[in-house]
């Protein structure tokens, strides 16, 4: 009898401890659920959504942006144009490293202000070398500096994208027009893609981007510049909310040297095709076989 009592007591104690431990373990979940919409939690993959479901999600994101940031934005699901295949080229002879492109990206894509985040990183290289072992990205002051040249790097929208290949949950994929996109609501933030990208083109949202309300770009798309949740990956989308409507990317429009050429690779008369056919074109880390859609060229 005494044994039974002792056993029962042990059992009771263990149960109590277990319950307390469980309660403690799920406590963050309870707090978390306050900011998490159940619809958002149950939302399916981007490709599994019908038009009607997508419309509901877009309105929900707009309402959430209004509630959390106090700004009325317009979020669209901008789909690719059939028959269009995007390509981008950058003139290394003309670029002066002024970082206007990175700044334009920062504003256009609602990047976090404190970290100066941008999908474009401008590398300062030593003249006479293409070695990436000795680059500087946080140079300041007057440019171009005499002993250096400059190479802006952003997502190369590879046709054999390592970042897509390593994603364990298909949260990132290649669209028919060549743009590699991320479903921010599907991404689990494992950062494999960041590690897989040889161009250092992917960024992780350590927290949701903080942008003053008056500076938020209200022209947004689900797959591009809408305000990203914390804990997900993001990347350059060739400004798909602009380019899929025929407009030029923000980084091209702002370039004061005309270094950037953008267009449809399927159109034989496009400017990008002329550059690829007539200039000395260079592919960064070509030997990796990533097949980029972003090219560098030199004036001859």
């Amino acid at each position, binding site marked *: 009898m005494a044994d039974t009592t002792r056993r029962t007591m042990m059992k009771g104690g263990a149960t109590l401890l277990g319950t307390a431990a469980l309660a403690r373990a799920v406590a963050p979940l309870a707090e978390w659920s306050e900011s998490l919409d159940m619809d958002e939690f149950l939302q399916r993959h981007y490709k599994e959504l*019908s038009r009607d479901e997508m419309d509901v999600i877009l309105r929900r994101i707009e309402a959430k942006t209004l509630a959390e940031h106090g700004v009325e934005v317009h979020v669209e699901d901008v789909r690719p144009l*059939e028959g269009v295949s995007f390509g981008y080229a950058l003139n290394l002879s003309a670029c002066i490293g002024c*970082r206007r492109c*990175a700044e334009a990206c920062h504003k256009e894509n609602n990047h976090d202000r404190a970290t100066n985040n941008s999908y474009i990183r401008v590398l300062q290289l030593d003249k006479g070398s293409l070695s990436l072992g000795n680059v500087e990205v946080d*140079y300041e002051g007057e440019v171009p500096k005499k002993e250096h040249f400059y190479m802006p790097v952003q997502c190369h929208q590879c046709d054999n994208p390592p970042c897509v290949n390593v994603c364990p949950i298909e949260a990132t994929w290649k669209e028919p027009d060549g743009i590699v996109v991320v479903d921010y609501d599907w991404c689990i933030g494992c950062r494999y893609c960041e590690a897989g990208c040889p161009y250092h083109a992917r960024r992780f949202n350590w927290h949701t981007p903080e942008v003053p309300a008056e500076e938020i770009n209200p022209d947004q798309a689900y797959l591009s510049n809408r305000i990203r949740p914390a804990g997900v990956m993001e990347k350059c989308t060739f400004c798909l909310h602009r380019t899929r409507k025929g407009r*030029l990317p923000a980084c091209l429009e702002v370039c004061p040297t005309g270094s950037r050429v953008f267009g449809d690779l399927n159109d034989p008369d496009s400017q990008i095709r002329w550059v690829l056919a007539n200039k000395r074109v260079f592919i960064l880390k070509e030997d990796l076989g990533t097949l980029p859609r972003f090219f560098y060229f030199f004036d001859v």
Partner: protein
Amino acid sequence: MLLLLTLACQGGFTDPSREYAEPLARGAEYPTVIHEPTGFGVLDETPIPEEAQREVPPNTACTTCHGPTPEKTWDVDPSEDFHELEVDHGNLKCAACHDPRDRSLLHLADGTQLELPEVIVLCSQCHGPQRRDFDHGAHGGMSGYWDTTQGPRVRNNCADCHHPHHPEREPVTAAFPPNDRYLRSH
């Protein structure tokens, strides 16, 4: 069901109508407008008193000082006579580009007169490769639409970026550097 499963495995859309955007309406092409030179090329026609004429900056009409008929000597030192105008453009002298018959105009090497906004034609006489690249969108900035069936495109003019008298571009101050966790230790 099996078909659906196969489709899902291939990564296609459950709703195929979402695969592509609605085709864009393709009407006539919108124009590509070449931005007219501002600042230097836009002339202030306000008459300037005789005694102040040596003081005026060069973005006043040439005829303010030179008159409709060229009375004054052409042989000027621009740095002295035009408010310290810096001239550093090869070995070119004023009359290589400015028309001696009418100082409000430019002229080509064969004597053909040109209005100031047509400066691209003038520059192209010597800068052929730049003109070739410009015509193919690979020199000089632009804004607007890559697809000109959807909207217009605006191109820069030579003089938007290159001062005709000292065409080499000035250095600029770089915009803000990244400030992410990879760089904080610097």
